């Protein structure tokens, strides 16, 4: 008997608490698979956020630390500087990274800290019940924007990957999504490259994943994926935003 596919050993055998069709579980798997395939799993350290992924430390097989809201990049800075030979990554949502934690992520990128950030952008606050996030699209409805986001009062959504790419310390930024197998393959490639560049000491690496939140978008999972491609990918273009890494060696 040959195994064609089984759950990665990069994840523990804990049932995930995420809603049906949520992108978090898929990205967790890609991170677990990438760490395992690169031989980094046994020494990697993950820094977990506040938000829907607050329990990520119970899911990844590697060691994890839970950071205060938005402060994962500050914790990762300390861990990476004291353990420069180990793979260190933060896993953060948009409420965590693009709102309360904006200062930490900008300054970690500015300093060129040699860890990887996996940024889950679902354009809404998930865990707290669907409030407007900094990444919510113009016109997109949220509990705190019942008529849709109005730029006159709420401004425009932040393109984090592009914003951080203006900083010299960031060497790699790639925006991906996980709605189907070709996009999932691209996402895994991006995560692996980010980890490889980190281990080569290239600088700060950033992978933004556009991820569906069917529950708070008020959609069925398949409808949410279609909406993501039609609306989110139109505002947040997929692809490599910046790659100064060269060959990771």
């Amino acid at each position, binding site marked *: *008997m*040959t*195994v*064609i*596919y*089984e*759950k*990665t050993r990069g*994840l523990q055998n804990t*049932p*995930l608490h*995420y*809603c*049906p*069709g*949520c*992108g*978090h*579980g*898929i990205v967790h*798997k890609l991170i677990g698979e990438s760490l395992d395939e690169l031989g980094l799993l046994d020494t990697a350290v993950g820094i977990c956020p506040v938000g829907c992924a607050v329990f990520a430390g119970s899911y990844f097989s590697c060691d994890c630390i839970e950071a205060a809201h938005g402060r994962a990049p500050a914790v990762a800075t300390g861990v990476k500087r004291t353990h420069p030979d180990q793979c260190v990554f933060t896993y953060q949502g948009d409420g965590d990274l693009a709102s309360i934690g904006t200062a930490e992520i900008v300054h970690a990128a500015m300093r060129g800290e040699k860890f990887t950030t996996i940024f889950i952008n679902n354009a809404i606050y998930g865990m707290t019940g669907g409030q407007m996030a900094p990444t919510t699209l113009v016109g997109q409805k949220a509990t705190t924007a019942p008529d849709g986001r109005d730029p006159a009062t709420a401004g425009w959504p932040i393109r984090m990957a592009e914003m951080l790419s203006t900083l010299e310390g960031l060497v790699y930024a790639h925006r991906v999504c*996980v709605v*189907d*197998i070709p996009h*999932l393959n691209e996402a895994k490639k991006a995560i692996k490259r980010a980890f490889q560049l980190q281990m080569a000491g290239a600088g700060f690496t950033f992978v933004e994943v556009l991820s569906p939140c*069917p529950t708070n978008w008020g959609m*069925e*999972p*398949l409808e949410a*994926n279609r909406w993501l491609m039609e609306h989110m990918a139109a505002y947040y273009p997929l692809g490599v935003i910046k790659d100064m890494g060269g060959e990771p060696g």
Partner: protein
Amino acid sequence: MAIHLFFDRDLCKGCQLCVSLCPRHILALDSAPNAKGYRPVCCTDESACVGCASCARICPDSVITITKD
């Protein structure tokens, strides 16, 4: 060569991402709910499976294991 699909029924949340990606259209939701109350995915014709693993790879909850013998 026979391909076998194993479903961890009680992990499934019935999101149907796997159903939508199956090129052979042999995945469907079971009529009986699982322990969580979701109708979990099942295979309607295992002999037609080509082992592409699209279903297993997209599954957010790692419900599906695929083997061949």
